[in-house]
Each structure stands twice: as C-alpha cells, then as structure tokens.
C-alpha cells in the first residue's frame, strides 16, 4: 500500500468529497448508535444465537453497508471456558460490549476482563511475569501496538498460528507475536468554515509554515496516540528534525488540550481551525452533530498518516492456549469486525469489511513505511517533548 503513490493525491484528501452526502445523512444516522448507549450490550437476542445484526451498530449508515465478506463465527469452534483478559486503554472500554455479546452467544464462555490503562497493564504484566509465577491473564488486548510490542519484546508472549493472522495485512502482525484487530488513523480534523481542504498541506512538515494555520492549531501531547505520532516522526525523520518541527509548531502558536476528543470538538466549534487527532473522534463529533463544520484530512506517507492498531496477544504461562487462540480468531470474524467498524468507528482489519462514514479503506490510505513495533520507544519521545517544553 505504501508503494502505491498514485493513491496519494487522491486518498490523502479529505474524505468529504467522496462522503459529502454520506457525511450528513449516514453519520447523522450514527446518532442512533451513540444515543442509545445506556442500554448497550443488550442488542443480542439473548438466546445464545445472536446474529451479525446484533454486532452491528444500528443507524442509517448500516443500510449502506453492502455485502461484507470473511470468516463468520459459525465457521469457528464454540468459545467455552473461562478466559482472563487484560484489556488496555480508554477506548478499550468500548470493547466490553463485544465481550458481553460473545458471552451471550456462547453461554459456556466466561470472559473475565480487567480494564486499565494500556501502559499500566504493560508494567503490571512485567511485574507479574518477572516474579516467575506466570501472568494472571491469558490474553492482553491493548489499544496500541506499542504496548503490545513492549510486552512481546520482553518475551512474555507466545506466537500466534499463521492461519489465525492470515486475513490481516502483514504490517499488523509483524512477527506473529500479536495481531491487530482494529485500526485507527492519525488525521487532521479541521473547521470547514475557516479552512478549505487546499489549506491543509500534504505533509505535516509543512504545517508550521502554513499561513492559514498560524495560531489556529491544537494538539494533546499527553495523549498516547499523539506520542505515537511523534515517535513515528522520530523513526522517519530523526530526532533533530522532529525537535525542530515541535519547536516550529510552538512558534506557530499551537495550543495544548487534554485529549483528542476535545481537540476535535474545539475544531468543530471553531475554537481551532485544525488539530491533530485520531480519525474516529471527528466521526463521533459528526455523529452527534451532523451539521458541525468539521471534516477530516489525511496527510500522506509521513507520521501524520500513521495507522496504529488495537490488537491482541497471548501471554506465556497460560494453560488456555486453544481458548485464547479461538478468542482472537473470533475478534477477526465478520461479526466482530463489523462491531469495530460500526460501533467504534475503527478501521476493520480484514479486507472484506469496509470502514463507515465514507472513510477511505486502510489499503487506500498511505501510511508511513515503519515498523509499528518500534512505536514502543516512547521514552525518547517524552524526552523530546519535555526538552521542547511541549510537555
């Protein structure tokens, strides 16, 4: 995908052009998905035989989903038994609904999960495993590749079988120690009243010198995904250039926010002209306010176009290897992928399931050619952010 430079000029552009109408109507339909959240998890038929519809979000955009292809849960052995899952990350909370759907489908399946920040679970797994008694969890499911790689690099994971990871693009299971199950792209949410798509450069390196963006940009440097973006920039362009970029952004008056949902809302409100955020936050803003003057742009082939994944890995010391593997296989079925796409607005990891909201497909984006495993070098990123005073 990265070698396909012909795609660049088309795909980096805001998805609005392709999704203008869908953006208004399709996303307005997402209101239904988000608005009735209080009773989430009860979408299942309750008789243990729930269908694709139960996993799919309810909303107007579902009508336009078309045909989706891939392994179905019916094709897999039933899940059965107790599985301890360390579930990392804020957005990870959204996955608990999927776990309860699975629990409904398989009455014999008992997923025990602990939801904590990803990095906290990495440290915890380290403390548990280094004590020698094995981990207290069978599966680690984290919202970022860096956390997955940090655990894998310590030798605390066991390799996944080839046929399990086969449906997923190579870069999202680099050494088969973990596999991506849902993706999120770095993007530039911008206010369409203040900017037009042509104002937003194709490369993040050009942002500090862009006249239209002076004093009008926002970022959230304490947010993990932002730090992954900076780490990617360091991998591609080196520490020196990254430091310069941060400094020049500061000189251009970039403002600091606590997280990227706030950045995206600030862009929708016109407090910012544009910001740095994960793609799905803008979709959430649009889902709630379909007429918000907000759109997404994607840069091309650089750190600004990074696609990070939420993924799963099996921890050493587990005596439930078969169940753990079958569970991860379930995360890659059509039903689970449809859940990620329509309920969390994430990028599906299998080719047969398209993303929602007129987003370009993963294979149409032009992410940088870097090894996601190396995103675990956050220490250096933090040093850099501190030295420049961004943190």
């Amino acid at each position, binding site marked *: 995908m990265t070698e396909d430079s012909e795609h660049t000029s088309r795909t980096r552009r805001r998805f609005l052009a392709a999704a203008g109408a869908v953006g208004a109507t399709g996303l307005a339909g997402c209101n239904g998905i988000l608005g009735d*959240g209080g009773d989430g998890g009860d979408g299942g038929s309750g008789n243990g035989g729930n269908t694709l519809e139960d996993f799919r979000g309810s909303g107007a955009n579902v009508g336009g989903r078309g045909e989706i292809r891939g392994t179905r849960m019916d094709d897999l052995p039933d899940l059965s038994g107790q599985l301890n899952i360390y579930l990392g990350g804020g957005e990870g909370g959204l996955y608990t609904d999927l776990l309860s759907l699975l629990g409904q489908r398989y009455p014999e399946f008992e997923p025990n999960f602990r939801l904590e920040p990803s990095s906290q679970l990495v440290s915890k797994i*380290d403390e548990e495993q280094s004590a020698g008694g094995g981990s207290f969890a069978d599966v680690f499911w984290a919202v970022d590749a860096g956390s997955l790689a940090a655990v894998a690099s310590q030798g605390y994971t066991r390799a996944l079988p080839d046929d399990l990871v086969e449906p997923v693009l190579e870069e999202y299971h680099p050494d088969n120690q973990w596999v991506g199950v849902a993706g999120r792209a770095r993007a530039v949410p911008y206010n369409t009243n203040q900017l037009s798509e042509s104002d937003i450069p194709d490369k993040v390196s050009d942002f500090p010198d862009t006249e239209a963006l002076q004093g009008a940009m926002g970022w959230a440097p304490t947010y993990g995904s932002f730090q992954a973006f900076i780490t990617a920039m360091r991998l591609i362009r080196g520490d020196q250039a990254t430091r310069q970029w941060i400094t020049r952004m500061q000189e251009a008056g970039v403002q600091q926010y606590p997280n990227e949902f706030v950045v995206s809302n600030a862009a929708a409100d016109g*407090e910012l002209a544009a910001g740095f955020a994960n793609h799905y936050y803008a979709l959430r803003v649009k889902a709630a306010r379909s007429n918000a003057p907000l759109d997404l742009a994607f840069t091309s082939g650089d750190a600004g176009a990074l696609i990070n994944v939420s993924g799963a890995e099996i921890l050493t010391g587990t005596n439930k290897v078969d169940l753990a593997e079958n569970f991860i296989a379930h995360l890659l079925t059509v039903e689970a992928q449809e859940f990620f796409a329509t309920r969390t607005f994430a990028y599906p990891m299998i080719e047969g399931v398209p993303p929602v909201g007129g987003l370009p497909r993963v294979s149409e984006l032009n992410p940088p050619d870097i090894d996601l495993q190396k995103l675990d070098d956050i220490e250096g990123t933090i040093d850099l952010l501190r030295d420049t005073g961004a943190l």
Partner: protein
Amino acid sequence: MSTREELAALRERLRREADGDGLGLTLLSAAIAAVLLSPVAWLFLRVTDIPTAEALSLLTAPSTTRVLTNSVALVATVTTATILLGVPLALLTARTDLPFRRFFTVVLALPLVVPSYIGAFAFVSAFGPRGVLADALAPLGVERLPEIYGLPGATLVLTLYVYPYVFLTTRAALFSLDASLVEAARTLGKGRVGAFREVTLPRIVPGIAAGALLVALYTLSDFGTPTIMQVDVFTSYIYVAYNGFAADQAALLSMQLLGVTTVILALESRIGQDDASAYASGGGGSATRIQLGSWRWVAALCCLVVAGLALVLPVGILLMWLFRGGLGYSGGGFEFELLFALNSIGVSAAAALVSVLLAVPVGYVAVRRASIPARLAERATYVGYAMPGVVLGLALVYFGVRFVPTLYQTLPLLVFAYVVRFLPQAVGTTTSSVLQVDTHLLEAARALGQSPGGAFRRVTLPLIWPGVLAGAALVFLTTMKELPATLLLRPTGFETLVSYIWRVQGAAYYGQAAIPALTLIVVSACSMAVILAQERR
C-alpha cells in the same frame, strides 16, 4: 506522708510506668510505620536499575528543575490559599451563629469528594475559551475571559477542592479547645480579637498545620488538576515517564518527590513541636457563639459562593453533559449499576476503619512519648500520601505477586493500599487532638484508681474523638474518589464509582460520568452528615 508527697510519688510511678509501656507502644508504632513504608523499598529496587550517570543527568536536567520549581510554587500558593479560606470557614461554622450551620458544615466539607479530574474539567468547560460562560457572555459583547490556564487557575481549582482539609482539621481543633480559656481571657479584659489571637489561635495552629500539611502533600501528588490546567508539575512528569514504559525513571522521579515531601514534613513538624507546650487544658464546655448580627447573612452568602463554585458548578456541568447527550458526550453503551456505589462505600468504610485503628496508637505515641523514634514513626506514615497513586499501586503489585499471591487482586490488599495512601489524614487529626488533652486529667484519672488503659478509654478517647472522627471522614471521602491504586489492585470485575467514571471518560463519553459522580457526591454527603453529627458528642 503528706498529700503533696503522695502525689509526687504517684507522678514518679506513672512516669516509670509510662517509660515501660512507652517502649512497647513505640515499637508498635514503628512496626506500623515500617509496614506502611514498604512500598518505598520498591522505588529503591527500581532505581538501582538505572546507571548512576543517567540518573544524575535526569535529576539535574533543566526540565526536571523547571517542573520542580512549578511544583513547589503550586504547593506554596495552594497551601496559603487553603489556609486563608479554610480557617475562616471553620470559625464561621464552629464558633458563630451562622444560619444553617449544619447544612453549611456538610456542604463546605463536600468539595473534597469531587475527583479533581472532574472539578478541573468542569472549570475548563465553564470558564475556558469557548466554555459555557464565554458562550453565555458572547451575545453581551464580552469577547475574552481572563485566562484560566496556568498557575493562577490551577491554584484556584485546587484550593476549592482541597481547602476542606484545613476546614475539617481546624474544626476538630476548635471543638477540642477548652472554651473556658477563651472566656477567662475575655474576663481578663481581652477583646474578641485579642482573645482569638492570644488564646484560640495558638491552640488551633497544630490543627491548621495538620490540614495544611495534607493540602501540601495532596497538591504535590495530584496529577489530574495540573494537567488539565496546563501546569507542568512533578507528577505529570512522572505519569508521562510511566506511560512511556519507563517505570524505573518514574521511580527515580518519585524518589525526588519524596525528597520534597521530607522537607515539607520537617517544616510542619517544627510548627507542631513549638506549640506542643502550649496545651494547658482541653475539652471543656463549648463556647458561647459569636453573634454576627446582620453580618451573618453576608457570611452565609460567602459560604454559598464557595459551595457554588466547588460543588454546584461541576455538578451542573455534568448534568449539562448528561442532558445534551446528543452532542456526543454520552453513549457508548456502558451500563451503570448501583452495585458500583455499594462497592465504593464498602472499601472506603473498611479503609477508614483500619486507618483509625492504626492512627490512634501512632498519633498518641508520637505526642505522649515524644521520643525521636515515635515522632519519626508518625512522620513516616505521611510518605505514602505523597506517592503518586500509580507508583504506590505498582509497588504493591510487586510485593503482592511475590510475597502474598493469595492476596493479590483481592480486597484486603486494595484496602491496605488505601491505608498506606490515606492514613496520614487520620494521623494528622488524631495527633492534633491528642496535643490538646491535658495530661493532668490523665494523672487525676490514675490517682482515682484507673488503669492506664482505663484512663485512655475514659479520659483520652472521648477528648480526642472529634479528631479521630474527622480523620475517619477524611479517609472515607478520599478513598471514595481514589483512582490509580483502585484500578491496579481491585479484584477482577470489581467496579467502583470512580473506576466506572474513568471508563466512560476514557472513552470520552463525559456525560455518562454524571450519574456516578452525583452518586459519589450524594453518598459522601450522607456519610459526612452522619459523621459530623457526632462531632460534638
């Protein structure tokens, strides 16, 4: 033998006795302190992983110095501001004819239960650029509000949420104060102000100092507020290092933080000691209330403003998020259950009970024995309070997995973590109450045939009860809102109010934090009312 000689002999016997069981009590106190300090050992283990040169360069880096300066400045401004706010409010509710005193007492103590990440977030939502207030004023031609980010804003928000420490400890000190002393001073021709300055103030200074110490250490260890208010402090630094899988760096920075803590503890202990000799008497009848006249309504208005800013504002913002759910602030499909509230109450009550049981011996011994080991033990209990919760939690993961695997991720270890973090709140209020107990009363009880235990039970305990209760209340309220250690150490599947709030906020569904946050505030209000009702039993 004359009566005088008999009395001297009794005193001598009491002194020798005291030296004897003093050793036992001091050992008990030291043992408690040692157990509470165990998490610090983990810091040393982690830090030894870092090469010395790297450690030195990290500690002396310009950015480290910068956050250190910021932290110290924030501690100084917040501590000063909380004293200026907390002491007058304590006096108003405890010593004057302020209308609706009981209501205000509860309401003014409540901001303590609002988690800082909710309070600060509400402030930014209300007063920030494009906030609720800015939107409301925009049609009136107000284009720019004063900047709320930065040190002044962080000071304001922190002050509003932590002044109850000073408020509660000062109240406890006021209730332990023998009112006849004030009356005597008045009889001797002192004016109200003079009597306050020369009689009341010196006697409540340890109480104020105990509260101020808690404020200072809380400010030092808080992460949420400075981050949201965009002030770089030590804890945000530690948090970021920790998030970057650099647990050893985080440990090193935490040790530096503990260095600052030690300095603060030493400073506060000077205040406590200087005035320890000033306690002639205590626990007498309650004073006649100061009549405020028509000022009482002005005073009530001031109390309302404080409560409005600290309580109504965040609650209002939360409700707004809840009801405009269509704006993407709610949804996501997380179901709230009443069980979460019961879980919170259960563990908080357990933590409060254990803390009080430990705080009474530690506080009592530190004052009565006044030996260096006893005082050190008392000071040492404060160290856990200044450890960032995530560092403390991870230290207990380390010890739990290795030494007590059967307790790991069970409630007893979680309660232990709370005790390590919050015991000092109970120790502080207990100590300042014990300071006010007249030792002559104990001698009298012994002369009348009470055993040492009996004298403690029948004389000391009733007198220090207000302080002990205030301590229990503080531990309860802060445990209710504790997050990092809860996430790390709770049993799998054990969901509390704050873990639920964290979950919905992490997914950026802020509106859904409204119901659990309101539950948190209501439950805490009820327990505060119960506890404060017993204050003057």
